[in-house]
């Protein structure tokens, strides 16, 4: 049987909606004003080949050799920790598929978790001896194991994951304690926004290519700084 609607509760509900909408609108206006006080940095990471020192595995990360846009590069600002109580912790999945960690590189926020799964029939192992998080678990086909990362290592100290049974398997987990980090897709692009004005180190690491770059940047309120990061075999770690 359908319940009859109480007119009093309907009125309350309407007031509540109005209050919420007003709060959201005011909040958005405040956010907008706030974002004007902040700045952003964006650009493209690209790889400049050197025929004398070819990068054998470039084909996995550079789809357009002519322009060199670099995929799976981690770009981040070096910044003080930022606590965001409202941010919900996330869980990222790294699968073991066809004897390969997929994805190979992931970026997470401190407090997030990584769920390792195994789509292969073979037994794998997931292990790390990092100071950030040390673990060593065997995982039969179809198994899973979740690790929460409560320490951050940023760009400079990724958690290196391996499989003791299959030494060619590898993955990297970058843990940040602030929101200004990204990983490039095939177009090499990155954008870090809502950055408080000031001077920062803009850092880029490509773990598989052992490539690294660092630039001092100044973020100005309401402006987007455009910086293209070009790396070559000279920018080895």
């Amino acid at each position, binding site marked *: 049987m359908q319940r009859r609607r109480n007119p009093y509760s309907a009125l309350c509900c309407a007031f509540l909606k109005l209050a919420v909408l007003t709060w959201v609108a005011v909040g958005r206006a405040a956010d907008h004003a706030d974002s004007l006080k902040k700045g952003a940095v964006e650009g493209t990471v690209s790889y*400049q*080949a050197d*025929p004398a020192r070819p990068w054998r*595995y470039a*084909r996995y990360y550079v789809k357009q050799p*002519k322009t060199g846009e670099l995929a799976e590069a981690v770009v981040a600002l070096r910044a003080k920790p930022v606590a965001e109580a409202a941010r919900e912790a996330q869980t990222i999945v790294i699968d073991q598929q066809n004897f*390969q960690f997929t994805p190979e590189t992931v970026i997470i926020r401190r407090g997030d978790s990584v769920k390792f799964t195994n789509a292969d029939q073979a037994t794998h192992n997931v292990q790390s001896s990092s100071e950030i998080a040390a673990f060593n678990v065997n995982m039969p086909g179809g198994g899973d194991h979740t690790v929460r990362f409560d320490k951050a290592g940023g760009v400079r100290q990724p958690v290196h994951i391996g499989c003791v049974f299959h030494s*060619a398997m590898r993955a990297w987990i970058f843990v940040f304690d602030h929101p200004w980090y990204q990983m490039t897709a095939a177009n090499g692009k990155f954008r870090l926004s809502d950055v408080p004005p000031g001077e920062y180190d803009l850092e880029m690491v490509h773990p598989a290519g052992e490539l690294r770059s660092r630039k001092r940047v100044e973020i100005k309120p309401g402006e987007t700084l455009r910086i293209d990061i070009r790396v070559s075999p000279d920018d080895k770690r």
Partner: protein
Amino acid sequence: MNSHRASRRDLLKAGISSVSAGLALMSMPSFVFPGQDAAEELVPFQNVPRATPNSLDWETLTEDEWLTPQDQVFSVQHYGSPKVDPSSFVLEVAGLIERPRKLSLADIKALPREDRLMTLECSGNGSSPGFSGAVYNSRWTGTPLAPLLKECGIKPGALEVVFFGVDRQKETLRKGTPRELTVEVPFGRSLSIEDAQRADLLLAYERNGQPMADRNGAPLRLIVPGWYGIANVKWLTRIEVRDRRYMGRFMGRDYVTIRGERQDGEVVFVESSVTRMNLKSAIARVTRHAAKDGKVPLKAYGAVWGDGTPIAKVQVKFDDGDWREAKLDDKHSEKYCWRFFSIDLGPVAPGKHTLVSRGVDAKGRVQPAAGDDEIALKKTYWEAYQQWPRTIQVEA
């Protein structure tokens, strides 16, 4: 193919390193097989993990890299990877011989110098998709073992020659029983007296004209052409002629293949030590040209190797088609080395395809599929010489 390679080399010789030259070079296929032309593009495998350093990168195997560069050479060690001081290094020849010898590295280098060309493979290579790059081809330089053994004078009653490395480790036997025993032992492998006196065995100190890398066994390594990697003892420091079978861990317990054999309809399991390499082939890569009339011309390239038995042919099967004969490369044809092959697969429809190769040798031996008895009834992972199917996605 040749014009492309010449132009690349010319650029390198001219020392041009400008960005534009670099980018132009990157846009060309920089990895060329015998018979490949510059317009061919790589069609990546779908079922092969990304290659990693210090193992063979199959998809980039080239004619120029018939001898494998050091950055693609695998190494496996069981008792750690010792760093041996060449100045204090001594090789001892002992046991059932008339004239025991102790030789410094300088003494060994003063002996006749010879080369051996050989493809060396880890016997576990191919046991999983993540472990398929543990094979490489080399020119080893050193001194032959046979004249040294002859000079030492092997006594009657000699049965085996044991080769010991510098590397040692504690081994526990009969673990968990009242007779548990722990002893420290050197790494060792043995050969029958006949095999040890083969003319082609070498005491090697160089690889591809360079001093051998520590991880590959410097300063001295036994080279046994046609035998799996484990027999090619690294950090070799003692050669001992004995009248009893040596049954160290890597002869008698590990590197033992356990395989079911059919005897009068019954499967009987037999244990045998891992010794000679098996006939094996693999597709290294697939290339394509631009689509024409909705179909894509494909070519496949690969390598075949074994224990030195001449290779009769390589066949390739595309999807459910018949086995078709590939063309064997005549440029590099050495008894104990891999031989490259190629095959024109013709125009194919876009989509997902599977292709696989198999070697056939002069004795009529055919490389088995994973489901054939000799692989399916093999319970250990060593001697993983089954066919390797490759999956590709051909875009229109």
